[in-house]
Protein backbone atom coordinates (compact mmCIF):
# COMPACT_ATOMS: atom_id res chain seq x y z
CA UNK A 1 0.00 0.00 0.00
CA UNK A 2 2.81 2.40 0.84
CA UNK A 3 4.17 1.87 -2.68
CA UNK A 4 0.89 3.06 -4.21
CA UNK A 5 0.69 6.01 -1.82
CA UNK A 6 4.25 6.95 -2.81
CA UNK A 7 3.32 6.79 -6.51
CA UNK A 8 0.22 8.94 -6.01
CA UNK A 9 2.17 11.49 -3.95
CA UNK A 10 4.93 11.67 -6.56
CA UNK A 11 2.55 12.16 -9.50
CA UNK A 12 0.54 14.87 -7.73
CA UNK A 13 3.76 16.64 -6.72
CA UNK A 14 5.07 16.61 -10.31
CA UNK A 15 1.71 17.79 -11.68
CA UNK A 16 1.61 20.76 -9.30
CA UNK A 17 5.20 21.92 -9.94
CA UNK A 18 6.22 24.21 -12.77
CA UNK A 19 5.71 22.49 -16.12
CA UNK A 20 3.27 19.98 -14.62
CA UNK A 21 -0.09 19.25 -16.22
CA UNK A 22 -2.49 20.40 -13.51
CA UNK A 23 -2.58 24.09 -14.41
CA UNK A 24 -2.69 23.51 -18.17
CA UNK A 25 -6.01 21.65 -17.98
CA UNK A 26 -7.72 24.37 -15.94
CA UNK A 27 -6.36 27.15 -18.16
CA UNK A 28 -7.64 25.36 -21.27
CA UNK A 29 -11.05 24.85 -19.62
CA UNK A 30 -11.11 28.54 -18.76
CA UNK A 31 -10.17 29.56 -22.33
CA UNK A 32 -12.86 27.45 -23.98
CA UNK A 33 -15.58 28.64 -21.61
CA UNK A 34 -14.61 32.30 -21.72
CA UNK A 35 -14.55 32.33 -25.53
CA UNK A 36 -17.95 30.67 -25.88
CA UNK A 37 -20.18 33.64 -24.85
CA UNK A 38 -18.33 35.82 -27.36
CA UNK A 39 -18.94 33.27 -30.12
CA UNK A 40 -22.60 32.63 -29.27
CA UNK A 41 -23.52 36.27 -28.73
CA UNK A 42 -25.38 38.09 -25.94
CA UNK A 43 -28.49 35.90 -25.91
CA UNK A 44 -28.78 35.02 -22.21
CA UNK A 45 -31.50 32.40 -22.64
CA UNK A 46 -29.51 30.60 -25.32
CA UNK A 47 -26.34 30.76 -23.21
CA UNK A 48 -27.95 29.23 -20.16
CA UNK A 49 -29.48 26.50 -22.35
CA UNK A 50 -26.07 25.69 -23.85
CA UNK A 51 -24.19 26.21 -20.57
CA UNK A 52 -24.03 22.61 -19.26
CA UNK A 53 -23.01 21.29 -22.68
CA UNK A 54 -20.25 23.91 -23.00
CA UNK A 55 -18.89 23.16 -19.53
CA UNK A 56 -18.93 19.42 -20.21
CA UNK A 57 -17.21 19.82 -23.57
CA UNK A 58 -14.57 22.05 -22.02
CA UNK A 59 -13.93 19.55 -19.22
CA UNK A 60 -13.73 16.64 -21.67
CA UNK A 61 -11.24 18.39 -23.95
CA UNK A 62 -9.19 19.61 -20.98
CA UNK A 63 -8.90 16.09 -19.60
CA UNK A 64 -7.89 14.72 -23.03
CA UNK A 65 -5.26 17.44 -23.30
CA UNK A 66 -3.52 16.47 -20.07
CA UNK A 67 -3.96 12.69 -20.33
CA UNK A 68 -1.46 12.09 -23.13
CA UNK A 69 1.47 12.63 -20.73
CA UNK A 70 0.12 10.09 -18.22
CA UNK A 71 2.44 7.27 -19.30
CA UNK A 72 4.61 8.90 -21.97
CA UNK A 73 6.73 10.82 -19.46
CA UNK A 74 7.39 7.68 -17.40
CA UNK A 75 8.16 5.71 -20.54
CA UNK A 76 10.65 8.25 -21.86
CA UNK A 77 12.72 8.47 -18.68
CA UNK A 78 12.68 4.72 -17.98
CA UNK A 79 10.51 4.89 -14.85
CA UNK A 80 7.88 2.71 -16.51
CA UNK A 81 10.39 -0.16 -16.79
CA UNK A 82 11.01 -0.07 -13.05
CA UNK A 83 7.29 0.23 -12.29
CA UNK A 84 6.60 -2.81 -14.49
CA UNK A 85 9.36 -4.81 -12.71
CA UNK A 86 8.27 -3.90 -9.19
CA UNK A 87 6.36 -5.97 -6.67
CA UNK A 88 3.28 -3.78 -7.11
CA UNK A 89 0.91 -5.26 -9.73
CA UNK A 90 0.92 -3.09 -12.85
CA UNK A 91 -2.90 -2.86 -12.74
CA UNK A 92 -2.78 -1.23 -9.30
CA UNK A 93 0.05 1.08 -10.36
CA UNK A 94 -2.05 2.19 -13.37
CA UNK A 95 -5.05 2.80 -11.12
CA UNK A 96 -2.87 4.84 -8.73
CA UNK A 97 -1.50 6.94 -11.59
CA UNK A 98 -5.01 7.59 -12.91
CA UNK A 99 -6.23 8.53 -9.44
CA UNK A 100 -3.33 10.94 -9.00
CA UNK A 101 -4.08 12.45 -12.41
CA UNK A 102 -7.73 12.90 -11.51
CA UNK A 103 -6.87 14.58 -8.20
CA UNK A 104 -4.34 16.91 -9.82
CA UNK A 105 -6.10 17.66 -13.11
CA UNK A 106 -9.77 16.62 -12.70
CA UNK A 107 -10.67 18.12 -9.33
CA UNK A 108 -9.50 21.67 -10.27
CA UNK A 109 -11.94 21.58 -13.22
CA UNK A 110 -14.82 20.90 -10.83
CA UNK A 111 -13.65 23.64 -8.48
CA UNK A 112 -13.51 26.08 -11.41
CA UNK A 113 -17.03 25.21 -12.60
CA UNK A 114 -18.99 27.62 -10.32
CA UNK A 115 -16.87 30.57 -11.50
CA UNK A 116 -17.26 29.65 -15.15
CA UNK A 117 -20.99 29.04 -14.65
CA UNK A 118 -21.38 32.78 -13.99
CA UNK A 119 -20.04 33.54 -17.48
CA UNK A 120 -22.66 31.26 -19.01
CA UNK A 121 -25.62 32.75 -17.11
CA UNK A 122 -26.21 29.59 -15.06
CA UNK A 123 -28.03 30.03 -11.74
CA UNK A 124 -27.05 28.35 -8.48
CA UNK A 125 -28.98 25.11 -8.98
CA UNK A 126 -27.76 24.69 -12.55
CA UNK A 127 -24.12 25.26 -11.56
CA UNK A 128 -24.44 22.84 -8.68
CA UNK A 129 -25.97 20.23 -11.02
CA UNK A 130 -23.15 20.60 -13.56
CA UNK A 131 -20.52 20.41 -10.81
CA UNK A 132 -22.17 17.27 -9.39
CA UNK A 133 -22.27 15.57 -12.80
CA UNK A 134 -18.65 16.52 -13.46
CA UNK A 135 -17.67 15.10 -10.07
CA UNK A 136 -19.39 11.83 -10.95
CA UNK A 137 -18.33 11.75 -14.59
CA UNK A 138 -14.72 12.97 -14.79
CA UNK A 139 -13.33 9.79 -13.16
CA UNK A 140 -14.83 7.90 -16.11
CA UNK A 141 -13.06 10.27 -18.53
CA UNK A 142 -9.73 9.77 -16.74
CA UNK A 143 -9.96 6.00 -16.40
CA UNK A 144 -11.10 5.37 -19.99
CA UNK A 145 -8.65 7.96 -21.27
CA UNK A 146 -5.91 6.03 -19.49
CA UNK A 147 -6.49 3.11 -21.90
CA UNK A 148 -5.78 5.38 -24.85
CA UNK A 149 -2.76 6.87 -23.07
CA UNK A 150 -1.36 3.37 -22.53
CA UNK A 151 -1.91 2.41 -26.18
CA UNK A 152 -0.20 5.59 -27.40
CA UNK A 153 2.75 5.30 -25.00
CA UNK A 154 5.34 4.21 -27.56
CA UNK A 155 4.31 6.82 -30.11
CA UNK A 156 5.84 10.25 -30.14
CA UNK A 157 3.21 12.96 -30.33
CA UNK A 158 0.48 10.43 -29.61
CA UNK A 159 -1.85 13.12 -28.27
CA UNK A 160 -4.13 13.33 -31.28
CA UNK A 161 -4.26 9.56 -31.59
CA UNK A 162 -5.27 9.43 -27.93
CA UNK A 163 -8.21 11.75 -28.61
CA UNK A 164 -9.41 9.60 -31.51
CA UNK A 165 -9.00 6.35 -29.56
CA UNK A 166 -10.81 7.62 -26.51
CA UNK A 167 -13.59 9.45 -28.36
CA UNK A 168 -16.04 6.50 -28.65
CA UNK A 169 -15.54 5.67 -24.97
CA UNK A 170 -16.16 9.21 -23.80
CA UNK A 171 -19.35 9.83 -25.83
CA UNK A 172 -21.67 7.94 -23.41
CA UNK A 173 -20.17 9.88 -20.49
CA UNK A 174 -20.79 13.16 -22.30
CA UNK A 175 -24.38 12.21 -23.22
CA UNK A 176 -25.40 11.22 -19.71
CA UNK A 177 -23.44 14.00 -18.05
CA UNK A 178 -25.19 16.69 -20.08
CA UNK A 179 -28.55 14.88 -19.85
CA UNK A 180 -28.33 14.78 -16.04
CA UNK A 181 -27.45 18.49 -15.87
CA UNK A 182 -30.33 19.41 -18.20
CA UNK A 183 -32.71 17.23 -16.20
CA UNK A 184 -31.83 19.11 -13.03
CA UNK A 185 -32.28 22.48 -14.72
CA UNK A 186 -35.36 22.11 -16.90
CA UNK A 187 -36.69 18.56 -16.58
CA UNK A 188 -38.81 16.75 -17.62
CA UNK A 189 -36.67 13.70 -16.81
CA UNK A 190 -35.88 13.13 -13.11
CA UNK A 191 -32.21 13.98 -12.30
CA UNK A 192 -31.62 10.55 -10.76
CA UNK A 193 -32.02 8.46 -13.91
CA UNK A 194 -29.21 9.81 -16.13
CA UNK A 195 -27.10 10.54 -13.03
CA UNK A 196 -27.24 6.90 -11.94
CA UNK A 197 -26.15 5.77 -15.40
CA UNK A 198 -23.30 8.31 -15.26
CA UNK A 199 -22.18 6.89 -11.89
CA UNK A 200 -22.42 3.36 -13.33
CA UNK A 201 -20.20 4.37 -16.27
CA UNK A 202 -17.63 5.75 -13.82
CA UNK A 203 -17.67 2.63 -11.66
CA UNK A 204 -17.32 0.34 -14.69
CA UNK A 205 -14.39 2.34 -16.03
CA UNK A 206 -12.68 2.25 -12.61
CA UNK A 207 -12.61 -1.54 -12.96
CA UNK A 208 -11.96 -1.95 -16.69
CA UNK A 209 -9.51 0.93 -17.21
CA UNK A 210 -6.57 -0.30 -15.08
CA UNK A 211 -6.70 -3.83 -16.51
CA UNK A 212 -6.91 -2.65 -20.12
CA UNK A 213 -4.14 -0.08 -19.59
CA UNK A 214 -1.83 -2.59 -17.85
CA UNK A 215 -2.37 -5.13 -20.63
CA UNK A 216 -1.50 -2.64 -23.36
CA UNK A 217 1.54 -1.36 -21.42
CA UNK A 218 2.90 -4.91 -21.05
CA UNK A 219 2.46 -5.37 -24.76
CA UNK A 220 4.03 -2.04 -25.61
CA UNK A 221 7.17 -2.31 -23.45
CA UNK A 222 10.20 -3.21 -25.49
Amino acid at each position, binding site marked *: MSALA*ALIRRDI*RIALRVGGGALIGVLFFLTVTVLMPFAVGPDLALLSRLGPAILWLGALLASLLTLDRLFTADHEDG*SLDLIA*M*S*RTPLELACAAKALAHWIAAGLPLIVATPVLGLLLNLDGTATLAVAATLLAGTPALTFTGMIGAALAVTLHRGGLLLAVLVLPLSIPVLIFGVAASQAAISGPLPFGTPFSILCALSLASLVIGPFAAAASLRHG*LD
Partner: protein
Amino acid sequence: MRLSGQNLKCVRGGREVFSGLDVSATASEALAVTGPNGAGKTSLLRVLAGLLVPAEGSIALEGGDAELSLPEQAHYLGHRDALKPALSVAENLSFWREFLGGKTEDAGRCLAAVGLDHAAHLPAAYLSAGQRRRLSIARLLSVRRPVWLLDEPTSALDAAGQALFVALMRDHLASGGLIVAATHLPLGIEARDLRMGAPA
Protein backbone atom coordinates in the same frame (compact mmCIF):
# COMPACT_ATOMS: atom_id res chain seq x y z
CA MET B 1 21.64 -18.52 -5.51
CA ARG B 2 21.93 -19.17 -9.24
CA LEU B 3 20.51 -17.27 -12.17
CA SER B 4 20.23 -19.29 -15.34
CA GLY B 5 18.75 -18.75 -18.75
CA GLN B 6 18.66 -21.57 -21.25
CA ASN B 7 18.43 -21.58 -25.02
CA LEU B 8 17.25 -17.97 -25.05
CA LYS B 9 16.06 -16.47 -28.30
CA CYS B 10 15.10 -12.87 -28.73
CA VAL B 11 13.30 -11.38 -31.73
CA ARG B 12 12.80 -7.63 -32.05
CA GLY B 13 11.00 -5.95 -34.90
CA GLY B 14 10.95 -9.21 -36.87
CA ARG B 15 14.76 -9.54 -36.64
CA GLU B 16 16.44 -12.24 -34.62
CA VAL B 17 18.81 -10.55 -32.16
CA PHE B 18 20.25 -13.73 -30.63
CA SER B 19 19.28 -17.37 -30.32
CA GLY B 20 20.41 -20.48 -28.50
CA LEU B 21 22.04 -18.37 -25.79
CA ASP B 22 22.81 -19.87 -22.38
CA VAL B 23 23.44 -17.54 -19.46
CA SER B 24 24.32 -18.43 -15.92
CA ALA B 25 25.64 -16.63 -12.88
CA THR B 26 25.92 -17.76 -9.28
CA ALA B 27 25.99 -15.85 -6.01
CA SER B 28 29.04 -13.63 -5.50
CA GLU B 29 29.76 -13.78 -9.20
CA ALA B 30 29.75 -11.08 -11.85
CA LEU B 31 28.99 -11.78 -15.48
CA ALA B 32 30.26 -9.24 -17.99
CA VAL B 33 28.29 -9.29 -21.23
CA THR B 34 30.45 -7.91 -24.02
CA GLY B 35 30.14 -7.62 -27.75
CA PRO B 36 29.90 -5.10 -30.56
CA ASN B 37 27.07 -2.57 -30.87
CA GLY B 38 23.86 -4.29 -31.90
CA ALA B 39 24.92 -7.70 -30.60
CA GLY B 40 21.95 -7.78 -28.23
CA LYS B 41 23.51 -6.94 -24.86
CA THR B 42 20.70 -4.60 -23.83
CA SER B 43 18.08 -7.01 -25.20
CA LEU B 44 19.55 -9.81 -23.07
CA LEU B 45 19.38 -7.65 -19.93
CA ARG B 46 15.81 -6.64 -20.71
CA VAL B 47 14.87 -10.29 -21.24
CA LEU B 48 16.38 -11.13 -17.83
CA ALA B 49 14.54 -8.16 -16.28
CA GLY B 50 11.24 -9.46 -17.64
CA LEU B 51 10.76 -6.38 -19.83
CA LEU B 52 11.06 -8.38 -23.06
CA VAL B 53 9.46 -11.75 -23.56
CA PRO B 54 11.94 -14.27 -25.02
CA ALA B 55 10.73 -15.99 -28.20
CA GLU B 56 12.19 -19.26 -26.90
CA GLY B 57 13.92 -20.53 -23.81
CA SER B 58 13.46 -20.22 -20.09
CA ILE B 59 14.89 -18.17 -17.23
CA ALA B 60 15.07 -19.28 -13.63
CA LEU B 61 16.44 -17.98 -10.36
CA GLU B 62 17.22 -20.78 -7.92
CA GLY B 63 17.78 -20.11 -4.26
CA GLY B 64 16.06 -16.73 -4.18
CA ASP B 65 12.81 -15.84 -2.46
CA ALA B 66 10.34 -18.45 -3.77
CA GLU B 67 7.44 -16.01 -3.39
CA LEU B 68 8.93 -13.48 -5.78
CA SER B 69 9.74 -13.56 -9.48
CA LEU B 70 13.20 -12.73 -10.85
CA PRO B 71 12.30 -9.14 -11.90
CA GLU B 72 10.92 -8.49 -8.41
CA GLN B 73 14.29 -9.46 -6.91
CA ALA B 74 16.37 -7.54 -9.42
CA HIS B 75 17.55 -3.99 -9.88
CA TYR B 76 17.71 -2.78 -13.46
CA LEU B 77 20.05 0.10 -14.25
CA GLY B 78 19.29 1.02 -17.85
CA HIS B 79 20.40 3.74 -20.25
CA ARG B 80 17.64 5.95 -18.94
CA ASP B 81 17.97 7.12 -15.38
CA ALA B 82 14.30 7.06 -14.29
CA LEU B 83 14.61 10.48 -12.66
CA LYS B 84 12.01 13.23 -12.61
CA PRO B 85 13.53 16.65 -13.33
CA ALA B 86 10.79 18.42 -11.35
CA LEU B 87 11.65 16.57 -8.13
CA SER B 88 14.69 17.12 -5.96
CA VAL B 89 17.50 14.58 -5.64
CA ALA B 90 16.23 13.44 -2.23
CA GLU B 91 12.62 13.23 -3.45
CA ASN B 92 13.61 11.12 -6.45
CA LEU B 93 15.52 8.67 -4.29
CA SER B 94 12.93 8.44 -1.54
CA PHE B 95 10.19 7.80 -4.10
CA TRP B 96 11.97 4.74 -5.50
CA ARG B 97 12.88 3.63 -2.01
CA GLU B 98 9.22 3.67 -0.93
CA PHE B 99 7.86 2.35 -4.22
CA LEU B 100 10.23 -0.59 -4.62
CA GLY B 101 9.80 -1.57 -0.97
CA GLY B 102 11.38 -4.53 0.74
CA LYS B 103 14.54 -4.08 2.82
CA THR B 104 15.58 -0.44 2.59
CA GLU B 105 18.59 1.57 3.66
CA ASP B 106 18.65 5.12 4.97
CA ALA B 107 18.28 7.49 1.99
CA GLY B 108 20.74 10.06 3.34
CA ARG B 109 23.45 7.45 3.78
CA CYS B 110 22.91 6.17 0.20
CA LEU B 111 23.28 9.71 -1.17
CA ALA B 112 26.45 10.15 0.84
CA ALA B 113 27.79 6.85 -0.50
CA VAL B 114 27.58 8.12 -4.08
CA GLY B 115 28.80 11.61 -3.17
CA LEU B 116 25.53 13.48 -3.74
CA ASP B 117 24.62 14.44 -0.18
CA HIS B 118 25.55 18.07 -0.80
CA ALA B 119 22.99 18.24 -3.66
CA ALA B 120 20.06 16.55 -1.90
CA HIS B 121 17.73 19.54 -2.25
CA LEU B 122 18.67 20.44 -5.81
CA PRO B 123 16.05 19.65 -8.49
CA ALA B 124 17.24 16.69 -10.58
CA ALA B 125 16.90 18.89 -13.69
CA TYR B 126 20.16 20.63 -12.73
CA LEU B 127 22.25 17.47 -12.38
CA SER B 128 24.99 16.62 -14.87
CA ALA B 129 24.93 13.28 -16.72
CA GLY B 130 27.44 11.80 -14.29
CA GLN B 131 25.49 13.03 -11.26
CA ARG B 132 22.30 11.54 -12.68
CA ARG B 133 24.09 8.23 -12.99
CA ARG B 134 25.30 8.50 -9.40
CA LEU B 135 21.73 9.11 -8.26
CA SER B 136 20.57 5.99 -10.15
CA ILE B 137 23.31 4.02 -8.43
CA ALA B 138 22.05 5.32 -5.08
CA ARG B 139 18.74 3.64 -5.96
CA LEU B 140 20.53 0.26 -6.13
CA LEU B 141 21.90 0.87 -2.65
CA SER B 142 18.71 2.18 -1.06
CA VAL B 143 16.72 -1.00 -1.66
CA ARG B 144 18.37 -4.37 -1.09
CA ARG B 145 17.97 -6.65 -4.11
CA PRO B 146 20.19 -9.71 -4.71
CA VAL B 147 20.37 -9.41 -8.52
CA TRP B 148 21.81 -6.36 -10.27
CA LEU B 149 21.22 -6.04 -14.02
CA LEU B 150 23.46 -3.22 -15.22
CA ASP B 151 23.52 -1.72 -18.71
CA GLU B 152 26.71 0.29 -19.33
CA PRO B 153 26.81 1.20 -15.63
CA THR B 154 29.93 3.34 -15.75
CA SER B 155 29.01 5.50 -18.75
CA ALA B 156 29.24 9.22 -17.92
CA LEU B 157 30.98 8.52 -14.60
CA ASP B 158 34.31 10.25 -13.90
CA ALA B 159 37.37 8.32 -12.68
CA ALA B 160 36.45 8.81 -9.02
CA GLY B 161 32.89 7.73 -9.74
CA GLN B 162 34.08 4.59 -11.51
CA ALA B 163 36.35 3.67 -8.61
CA LEU B 164 33.46 4.27 -6.22
CA PHE B 165 31.16 2.06 -8.28
CA VAL B 166 33.73 -0.74 -8.44
CA ALA B 167 33.89 -0.68 -4.62
CA LEU B 168 30.07 -0.78 -4.41
CA MET B 169 29.93 -3.76 -6.81
CA ARG B 170 32.59 -5.55 -4.69
CA ASP B 171 30.47 -4.99 -1.56
CA HIS B 172 27.39 -6.31 -3.35
CA LEU B 173 29.19 -9.47 -4.47
CA ALA B 174 30.71 -9.96 -1.02
CA SER B 175 27.22 -9.87 0.52
CA GLY B 176 26.13 -12.74 -1.73
CA GLY B 177 24.61 -10.76 -4.58
CA LEU B 178 25.12 -11.39 -8.27
CA ILE B 179 25.70 -8.98 -11.13
CA VAL B 180 25.03 -9.20 -14.85
CA ALA B 181 26.53 -6.20 -16.59
CA ALA B 182 26.58 -5.25 -20.27
CA THR B 183 29.73 -3.27 -20.87
CA HIS B 184 32.34 -2.11 -23.36
CA LEU B 185 34.86 -1.06 -20.73
CA PRO B 186 36.50 -3.41 -18.25
CA LEU B 187 34.27 -3.63 -15.18
CA GLY B 188 37.17 -3.36 -12.75
CA ILE B 189 36.20 -6.50 -10.84
CA GLU B 190 36.83 -10.15 -11.59
CA ALA B 191 34.06 -11.15 -13.93
CA ARG B 192 33.26 -14.05 -16.16
CA ASP B 193 33.00 -12.97 -19.77
CA LEU B 194 29.99 -13.68 -21.95
CA ARG B 195 30.87 -12.68 -25.48
CA MET B 196 27.92 -12.04 -27.75
CA GLY B 197 28.30 -12.41 -31.50
CA ALA B 198 28.19 -9.85 -34.28
CA PRO B 199 24.76 -8.69 -35.43
CA ALA B 200 23.09 -11.21 -37.69
